[in-house]
């Protein structure tokens, strides 16, 4: 038997936003309120504790000799336990970046109203193995003047405001 595009049935039935808003078709709504408390584990636990101290810590794999950030208890490449803790710097370079006009829910930022776009980036941290980056935000820079390889430094919250979270670093900003 010949199989052609005829196999596409009349289904599915297309709905417009209006169909739902005006109640032409009925739907059931539910807003979940799920709450979690995630344990950080020993590696990220120490990482967060050091962020509270205003320092960035990594962990070394004694097999591949990579200095791993964020620190981890085992090396995912060598699959062996990692070795010593190593302090790294709070400076680095921009590996790649984005100029985002949307928030996490795909909601639009009021760019025309003067809201600054988010500028998340992968930042290669000085002292960690080349190419090892973390996700963080850039600020105090014209979004359109960010470039690959730009040198940046962490801007920390004041010590009394730090809680042991990745957000204890407010963002990274360019340095000479």
């Amino acid at each position: 038997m010949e199989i052609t595009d005829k196999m596409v049935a009349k289904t599915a039935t297309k709905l417009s936003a209006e169909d739902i808003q005006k109640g032409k078709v009925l739907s059931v709504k539910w807003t979940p309120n799920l709450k979690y408390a995630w344990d950080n584990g020993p590696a990220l636990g120490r990482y967060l504790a050091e962020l509270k101290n205003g320092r960035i810590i990594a962990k070394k794999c004694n097999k591949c000799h990579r200095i791993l950030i964020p620190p981890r208890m085992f090396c995912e490449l060598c699959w062996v336990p990692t070795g010593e803790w190593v302090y790294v710097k709070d400076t680095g370079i921009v590996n790649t970046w984005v100029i985002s006009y949307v928030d996490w829910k795909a909601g639009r930022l009021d760019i025309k109203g003067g809201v600054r776009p988010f500028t998340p980036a992968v930042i290669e941290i000085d002292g960690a193995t080349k190419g090892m980056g973390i996700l963080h935000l850039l600020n105090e820079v014209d979004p359109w003047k960010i470039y690959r390889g730009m040198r940046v430094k962490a801007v920390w919250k004041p010590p009394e405001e730090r809680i042991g979270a990745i957000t204890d670093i407010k963002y990274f900003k360019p340095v000479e």
Partner: protein
Amino acid sequence: MRRVAIVGAGLTKFYRNAQETPKELAYEAARMALDSCEMKLSDIDCVVMGTAPDAFDGVHMKGEYLADGAGAYRKPYMRHFVGGGTGVLSPIHGWFHVASGMFDTCLVVAEEKMSSAYPHPAGAFLTIFDHTTEQPLYPTLIWIFAIEMNRFMTTWGYKKEDIALVAVKNKRNALDHPSAQLGAEITVQDVLNSEIMAWPVNRLDISPTSDGAAAIVLAAEHVARRVTEKPIWIDGVGWCLDTAYWCTRDLYYPDYVEVAARMAYKMAGIKEPSKEIHVAEPYDPFTYKELHHIEGLLLAPRGKSVEMLKDGYFNRDGNLPTCPSGGALGVGNPISATGLMKIIEIFLQLRGEAGKRQVPGKPTCGLAQAWGDLMQVGTVVVMRS
């Protein structure tokens, strides 16, 4: 291992919002797949289901919920999920069941209903990121694609206006696809002028959110030869997962896609993929992804895909047509169903039954690929007539 063929296929239309429930969508696609090869559910030995995050539907036993629609009542049934890579893992999962000798036939169904997550399914993706190091920064999926696209562009000097040609090509191809949600005749300028989402990603660089389902029927050789004169053989399968520490990989190149492709090529006996593959459906949820994957699949030299795109190499009448269906950008992107839609497109192309979308030159070997999770999974299937 036994040879396994695809003998039937079914596909619903893709819409931003379909009235049907996920179960009903799965039923329609599965029903059509059986009808297409004049088989009955009683001819089916087992069922596999591909469907992406439970968070889209808000149903935390989605495999079980969908089982009735997929025709799995009192049959051996398994659900699999590797994010956007799911739809091309689906035929691989079904292939195991038949190639192993365990079953003679397998119904493979992929379904996604993204419109249930309200107001936009993007919010459901926040929890794919590491809860300690990334989630507190409120990342969105678009960020990480834009991050990857930018690395790809700055590594090779690719320009946005050149990458935009992928959207022009795929949306045009989709005009000929009866399931398509977003077939259109657009220009590069339309892409560049469309809303900035997360530079370098504009609105028309992104595939839509969609509802839809797809299904295929797999059969062992002795059954396949009875069912159809034109079985399409699954000759190579490959899949691979990279580390979830995505910030420590160089995002300019998808190594995991290459590993998956090499696995599939080796199994299919393919030595020179760029010559031996006649038609391909690389995963294109974003414009740059099609090119990124073409390079990872070894269908173009690294850093050369844009030049080839500009020369028309990947057009439907080019040397190596890619996404002749219209792809995720044109047909739509109901995650797992998209991957299986791509498999179905290669199935139709190799049978010479793709209608207006038929690529010239009587292709005999094709490939479909999908990708997903935290930019870390590659799934590849090589098919021959």
